[in-house]
């Protein structure tokens, strides 16, 4: 099969990888790049576990053809926060008990981040709309909503400082 070179800005750093034209973005992230934080649930665009941010927008990486990511800015869970300093969303997800098994969490956090990057003052309705494509079988969503609300507050407070 023919090979192509994919260049993208991954979590702020330029990367270059050899890919096959039929690869999905998720294949490339989890495979060759070893970024297994992004999860594969359904592989069909139905669960949101594979959500990443592409050029500022949340997308299901399992149905994005990898060649389309050429020159795109891609953010994955690995680019969010550090062990020393968690992202506000990571902190509030832990604090609120918005994580149980954790399988949906990376995707959930990426959807939430895409929302907060654009809208630092979301309503509950807006939060629900932003994560409606992320299925969680454990938490029942209430704590996830709370965590996102709380993270929005934290981000606003940090900005004011």
């Amino acid at each position, binding site marked *: 099969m023919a090979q*192509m070179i994919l260049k993208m800005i991954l979590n702020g750093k330029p990367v270059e990888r050899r890919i096959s034209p039929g690869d999905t973005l998720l294949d490339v992230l989890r495979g060759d790049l070893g970024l297994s934080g992004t999860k594969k649930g359904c592989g069909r665009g139905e669960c949101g576990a594979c*959500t990443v941010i592409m050029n500022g927008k*949340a997308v*299901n990486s399992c*149905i994005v053809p990898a060649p*389309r990511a050429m020159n795109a800015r891609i953010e994955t869970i690995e680019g969010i926060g550090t062990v020393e300093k968690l992202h506000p969303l990571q902190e509030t997800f832990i604090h609120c008990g918005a994580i149980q098994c954790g399988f949906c969490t990376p995707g959930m956090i990426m959807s939430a981040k895409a929302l907060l990057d654009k809208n630092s003052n979301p309503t509950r309705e807006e939060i629900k709309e932003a994560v*409606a*494509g992320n299925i969680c079988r454990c938490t029942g969503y209430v704590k996830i909503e709370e965590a996102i609300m709380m993270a929005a507050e934290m981000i606003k407070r940090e900005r004011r400082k």
Partner: protein
Amino acid sequence: MLKDYVRAQTVDEVLAALQKGDARVIAGGTDLILDLQAEKVSAEILVDINSIDDLQNIELVDGQIRIGAAVTHQQAAESQLVLDSAPVLAEACRSVGSLQIRNTGTVVGNVINAQPAADAAVALVALGAVAEIKTENGTAYQPVEDLYTGVGKSKIDSTKQLVTAVQFPALLPNQGSAFIRLAQRGALALPVLNVAVVASLVNHKVEWVRIVMAPVAPRPLRAVEAENMLRGREVNEQNILEAAKAAAARANPRDSALRGSGQYRKSVLETLVKRGLSEAFNKAQG
């Protein structure tokens, strides 16, 4: 087996690439990727149209709203022009899948994929939308409504043709629209039924109305008898009720494990059409 993936920069490049062997257009790809993986469709070359500038716009040209083939559902749902002058489409686009899907899947793709209940396509039929179809030999126009040949089957051959845009008249102040959707949940749920209505009133009488119902046939179905019945009539409850009855009588929803029994859906449909008509007429009256 896929051998190449071309990110076309111009429409001409797409048409040229389609001449080369086993090539196929890909827009959002939210369905095509799955069909390729399931080997329902095959291609050696995919021609991606998302980076073509000309196809990314939503514009108003001579009273017509034109939606380029790379415009996503979310872009259409958020467009002020669409919200103001074709709210039925904004609402339909907003109810598609999830945000991730709406950020990827395109409005035009929703038509070409030819699922009879595709929300955006149902709204486009109600708006009287026309598709602009390009091939090496030139440009042709066809009503969106006429592009269906069966469930999931479009007249458009994506290995030879490119739909560059859909366009339809922007609604005028004496016109109104409604999109009514019945589903099990607010997101990621197939419509049990959806109804789109666009109506034009003159002196409190119906000048014309388009009523589209789905999925009750292999394509978004126009309730032609009901539309004709209402033409020239007063807007009142009696007329709306009669038209809703006539509309539901034309529909033939099947029993479906996912959507409910045909009998249930047929009786609910009447109510949905009634609501759609009332809402569209109300909006047309301002």
